[in-house]
Structures are given as structure tokens and as C-alpha cells.
């Protein structure tokens, strides 16, 4: 009956390498950047600078975890930075502020303020999830609207002012440290770890990959596709909210637009790491590499005294390059799998 020649000869290393392009390219980039900066600047490859790099990417990392879930489902969340901002401001709004801060706010005990912040970001996430899964608005558009809504909430709450106080727990987690290690790095590390465990070892994680890989097939297998996509969007909002609250403590203030860079940074980290924009491929491991590439690049460019205006352009070019590799890897993949009988 159905037989085929299955004498497995050696898989040519070239073929295997090409299949791994998505994972290898970012890793090679990271190693190359580290080598480059270590060679050109003596102050780069030091322990204290490593700690700097990690600290600089921590907030992005927390946001990127949620975003990885969303992108793996072949959706996008453009509201992450804005949800972070709104949540951070909400927490400050719920905390007693110094008399000099002229905001009509609503002081609550610290833990209640934090609960309020979490509830706030989850509510925003729920609206996004509802719009995408129930009404059927493309996530690209829905989260664009949510970006504006988040900005609106920020504007209403702070009215152009700056708030400084947050609950003490947040202050510790955001700007304190245990021994030499900043708490924020620990929190980011734990978030990445939990994200990885969920994606790799749970049924929900598998569903995320399957929904991203072929939505129709997932549906035909009885997977609740809408629930999975909705959950991913909620997780993204939750991560963004957590990053927002910690970010306020990290920056030492809460104000409008303070997270604006994080949208692009978080998307870049996920994409540079090699998670497929078409869904179903990649993961937290990729995101970690992506975060480090961006972190090393940002930090290293300072060490070699790069013109800080040129830096912006360079970051754009790196993102473009990552996009090219991402799409190219997808195409290779499509060709590689085009058995189709």
C-alpha cells in the first residue's frame, strides 16, 4: 500500500540552517553587535554595563511578553504603550499626591490603587478583545482606536500635570534593588519566564500557536478561536498595565506620553527576535534575543558616542532589516513546506 522511500540519509546542514533562519539571524546579530561594541569601546563589556542594558530593556520586556502572545495569534496590539501610560497614570491618580501637584485625585490605600490599576488595564483589554472577537474589527484598527482612548484617559486624569507618588510596593519593584540586581530586572525576568512556560507547556499555549498557524484548521478542530484571541489580547493589556505601573515608579513620575517609545520598542523586540508576523512561529525565546539586540544596540551606540540623532535612524533601519528577514523566512518556510501532495 502507501509506501515511499523513507531511507533517511543525512540532512544537509545547509537545508537545516536555512530552516532555522528565523531563529539564527537574531542570535548571530546579537553576538556580532556584542563583539563590535566590545572591540570599539572599553566601557561596554563590563558587569555594570550589563546591568544597565538589562535595566533599560526591562519595561519593554514586560510589554513584549504580552505582545508575543498577540503576534503569535497573527494579530497585533498597537495600544500597548497607551494602555501602559493610562494604567500608570490611573495608579498615580489613586494615590495621595504631594500638595504641589494640582490634580483632583482619589486617594486609596496602596493595594487598592494597584488593584484599581490592574482592573483598569484589564477593562481596556476586555474592550479590545470584545471589539476584535465579537464585533469583528481587525485588531490593527481596533487597537489603534484603543491607543487613542488610552491617551484620552491619560489626558483627562492628569490634565497636563505631572504626578510623582505611587504606592510603596511599586516604588520598590520599579526603582529598588536586591543587592546589585534591580527589582525591575527580576520582575521582567519572571514575566518572561511565566510567558515562556505558558506558551510551551500549557494547552492554552499550544492553542495560541495553532490559531496563529492556521485559524480555519483550529476552528475545525474545535478550538475556541475567539476565546484564544481574546485571551491573548487580555494578556497583552495586563502586561502593558503592569509595565505602566512599574514604569511610573522607574521614571519617578507619571505624565502624558511618557511611554510613547515603548510601542515601537516592544514591536521591534518581538519582530527582531524572529517571531513571525504571520503567526504560529516564534516565542518568548525569540523575544528575549530581540530585546537584547535592541538593548545592546541602544546602549552600545552611546558607548561609541554615536550622534544621538543618527541613533534614531539606525534603530529604524534595524527594524526594517528585521522585517525583511521575517518575511523572507516566512517565504522560505512556505516553499519548504509546499509539499501539498
Amino acid at each position: 500500500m502507501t509506501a515511499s522511500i523513507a531511507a533517511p540519509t543525512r540532512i544537509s546542514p545547509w537545508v537545516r540552517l536555512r530552516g532555522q533562519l528565523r531563529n539564527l539571524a537574531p542570535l548571530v546579530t546579537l553576538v556580532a553587535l556584542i563583539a563590535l561594541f566590545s572591540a570599539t569601546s572599553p566601557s561596554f563589556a563590563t558587569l555594570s554595563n550589563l546591568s544597565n542594558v538589562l535595566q533599560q530593556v526591562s519595561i519593554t520586556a514586560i510589554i513584549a511578553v504580552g505582545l508575543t502572545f498577540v503576534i503569535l495569534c497573527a494579530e497585533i496590539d498597537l495600544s500597548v504603550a497607551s494602555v501602559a501610560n493610562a494604567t500608570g497614570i490611573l495608579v498615580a491618580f489613586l494615590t495621595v499626591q504631594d500638595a504641589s501637584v494640582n490634580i483632583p485625585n482619589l486617594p486609596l490605600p496602596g493595594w487598592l490603587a494597584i488593584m484599581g490599576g490592574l482592573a483598569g488595564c484589564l477593562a481596556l483589554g476586555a474592550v479590545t478583545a470584545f471589539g476584535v472577537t465579537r464585533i469583528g474589527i481587525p485588531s490593527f484598527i481596533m487597537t489603534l482606536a484603543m491607543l487613542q482612548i488610552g491617551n484620552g484617559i491619560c489626558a483627562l486624569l492628569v490634565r497636563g500635570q505631572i504626578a510623582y507618588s505611587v504606592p510603596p510596593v511599586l516604588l520598590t519593584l520599579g526603582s529598588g534593588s536586591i543587592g546589585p540586581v534591580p527589582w525591575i530586572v527580576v520582575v521582567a525576568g519572571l514575566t518572561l519566564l511565566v510567558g515562556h512556560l505558558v506558551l510551551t507547556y500549557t494547552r492554552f499555549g499550544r492553542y495560541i500557536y495553532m490559531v496563529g498557524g492556521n485559524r480555519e484548521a483550529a476552528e475545525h478542530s474545535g478550538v475556541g478561536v475567539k476565546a484564544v484571541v481574546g485571551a491573548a489580547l487580555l494578556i497583552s493589556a495586563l502586561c502593558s498595565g503592569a509595565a505602566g505601573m512599574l514604569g511610573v515608579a522607574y521614571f519617578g513620575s507619571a505624565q502624558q506620553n511618557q511611554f510613547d517609545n515603548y510601542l515601537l520598542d516592544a514591536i521591534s523586540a518581538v519582530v527582531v527576535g524572529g517571531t513571525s508576523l504571520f503567526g504560529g512561529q516564534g516565542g518568548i525565546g525569540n523575544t528575549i534575543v530581540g530585546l537584547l539586540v535592541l538593548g545592546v544596540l541602544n546602549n552600545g551606540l552611546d558607548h561609541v558616542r554615536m550622534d544621538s540623532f543618527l541613533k534614531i535612524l539606525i534603530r529604524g533601519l534595524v527594524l526594517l532589516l528585521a522585517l525583511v528577514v521575517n518575511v523572507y523566512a516566512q517565504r522560505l518556510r512556505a516553499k519548504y513546506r509546499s509539499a501539498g501532495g
Partner: protein
Amino acid sequence: MRTSLAGEPLLELSGIAKRFAGVLALSGVDFTLRAGEVHGLVGENGAGKSTLMKIIAGVHAEYEGEMRLDGRPVRFRNARDARDAGIGMVHQELSTVPELSVAENVLLGAQPTRMGVVSWRRMRAQARRQLDAFGIDVDPRAPVGSLPLGLQQMVELARVLLSGARIIILDEPTSALSPPEVERLFALLARLRETGRSTVFISHFLDDVLRVSDEVTVFRNGRRVEGARADAVDKAWLIERMVGAGHERLGESHAGEMRLADRPTAPVVMAAERLSVPGLFEDVSLSVYAGEVLGIYGFMGSGQLELARALAGKLPLDGGAVRVDGQAARLRGGTPAAKRAGIAFVPESRRAMLFAQEPVYRNISIAILERIGRVLLRPRAERRIAEGHVQSLGIRPAGVDRPVGQLSGGNQQKVALARWLTHLPRVLLLSEPTRGMDVGAKDDVVRIVRGLRDAGIGVVVVSSEPETVLSLADRILVMRRGAIAREFVGEPVSKDRLLAAA
């Protein structure tokens, strides 16, 4: 009517070998296509037919061996090279672009332009002409994805057949077509042959192959076994060479009459009452008994495929009720709700069923993950279950870690079936379950379906191939224009009678 114009060798392949990630899919293959001939290609699932054709069509650029066109060596780097050399291919899996309109699909890659701008009016007119020439009546502006699979296939055929290609490769072109559509295709092939075009025709319907071909070639295990003039051989000859020595396999034996079982006395597992979806089917009622296989046959477009989709929660019902084991099934909740009610569905399109880049075992376990572990995955258990199915279904190659997209068409279909074999649903809806399968694999499916039936579940097989329904069903409903036209139960039935009722 076989007035052979076949003359000069047009395309000659020699010593072709092809590996996928180290695994040999073709080796030492010689193949000659003459000008003006229809060349039939047969072989079991995974024999290498599609792979060889993809080499000719420039899809696979890396291979060993030599290809000559008009006596000159050629090597195509991509599909465009091959198209420019006059080679067109209809792939086994539809390759129409669902989002684009019919007109765009028909003229894909050859849109008429005026000063660099696509002229929509001329494009529609030209597409209209091509479709008319092929007797397809669809709106050129409709998105192809909105058409039934059979029509999509016709659109793709129209694109390639009328593109002016000299060499036309048809990889299982008829599996989604109704008998009248198949006739139209064959008539067109005869016309093309008269104009000196050459065609390669791949099919598991051996009667069709013998009927339309001048020359036939048999493949087995990545090698060319033997070739012959089609009028010098018969079906038994082909089967013998396809399965190799030592096997005694019968082909489909449904030319004659067969007697269906009497109406079952077992309880009803699924009762559907007065189902309607406007424009597709109207007022359809049916019962499925425990432990029976109910076949629903109809020409393409008679509504039977849509009926299956609706029963699976994929198509919102306009009216009617469905009960499973006496409980009302709330199908509005889509496929997950249907699954909860105990209804499982295997659609006709593999593209809609499989996760091409995921390994075989994940494709099998996806529907039962919640039973293996509520929260955490248990990959070892997943693998073990998958390995069992790969064994018992004879899926080749036998590993469970290979991406399912690398299997041959027929083996992919088996993986899709395997998904529902571990934790049985109450009702299993199979849409075109043997499409693209070779003789042996079809027998395997018959075996699987009988096994499921004997385990007491209600199986519904929906098809527009009479052979499929005849080989599987205990009882048969025939649909015509969105309504049930006739029921065959406890009586003799044959292909002719089915066709007459449809």
C-alpha cells in the same frame, strides 16, 4: 477516438532524483512527453508524481538529472521560468487566491494592461471569454473564495488550459468536479490535443486515466515502474504495477450493483429537522442512526457539502433544529459548540484542516488536548497516541515529528482523519473523505470508517463522487438542487442509479 498525433519528444527528463531534507522522493526517473499526447500518470500516494511534475513546472528548482525541452537542455529556476517556456500546471491543492476575483484569478500573472495600468474592463471581458469557452457560468467579479470548491477548481483549470501553454500538467484535476464538469474537461483536453498541445494527467481514477490518455506511466516508491500505450493495457495491469508484486488488491469494484442494508433498528444519534440555508438548501430533514454510515450524494453544487458544513456549525442555519442523542445541539456557537454536542467534521479541503508547519503528532492531538491534560500538555502521551494512528492507518513516512505539510496529499488526508479516532464523537461528518487517495488508501479509509461505525457512532459521508458513497455507505440520500431527492435503503443500488437520481 484515439487518433494519435503524438510525434516528436517534446520534453525529456532523464535520471531525475529529488531529495527533501535528505529523504529521497524520486530517483533515477526517466520520463518523455511527446507533442500532442495526453500522458496519464498513476501511482500510490507518495509515489512521487506531484514531485516530478513540480520539477517540470519549476516549483522545485533543486534536483539532480537533466531536462530537455525541444531537445535543448533547460533548467527552470522558478515557476515563472517554466511558464515562460510554455508550461502550465494545475496543482493538486487549489492554488487560486481566495481573496481575488474570478477574473483576476483566471488571468493571474497575465493581466491585460494599458500603459502599465491594469485595465479592469478588458480583464473582465477576457476572463468572461475564457470562462465561457469552458462553459463556466460565474460572475467574474466574485471573489474566488466565495465559490464552491468545484467551481474554484474549474476557474483554476480555465486559467491554465487557456493560457496558451504548450505543456499542461493536471495534478488530480477532477477530484472536486461533478461528472458533467469532468466531461467538459475531457472534451476540452481532446480539443487541446488536436491543436498539438501535450497534457500530463494525474489521477487516482484509473478508468478516467485509461480513457483520456494516449500513454500511461506508473510510478512506485519514487521510481518509474513501467509505461505503456493506454489502449494496450487495462486497470488490473495498472494496479498490479502500482502496488508491486505480492499484493493482491482489488480496485474500486462498484461498476456493478450492490445491495444496501435495511433500515437500521438502532437508536437515532442525530436528527435534523427542516434545515434551511437560503440559496443553498431548503427544508432538509434527516436522521442518522447509531452504527450506520449514511452517504449523502449529489452533484457538485447540490447543497450536500453545505449541509455538512451547517451541521458542523460552520454555516449559520436559517431554520430548523438539530438534536444529538435527543438533546438540542446549539450550533450557533460554531464548531466548538458542535464539538461539545458531539459532532465532529472533516472538511473537504486539507488546507482548512491541517497545520502545515506543525508536526504530525500535533495535528492529530489538537482535537483531544483537553482530554490528555486540562491545563498542562503531555507531549509524550500525544506522541504515543499519534504513533498508534500512524501505524494503524499506514501513514507514510511513519514518523510523527515531520511537519505535516511535507507528506503527500493522500497521507495528509489520513492525518486529518486520525484526529477523530481517539475520543470518538457521536456523529462524524466526512466531506469527500477519499479525495486524492490511491486505491490502497481508499481501502484503508473504508476500513477506518467501518471500524468507527462498528464502534457505534453515526458516520455521515458527503460526496460528489458516486464511488466514495457506494464504497462506504449503508444507506444513501441523494440531494438535488438543495433538497433530498431520493433515499436508497435496503435495495440494490449502482452508480447508474445514483446518477439517475441526482
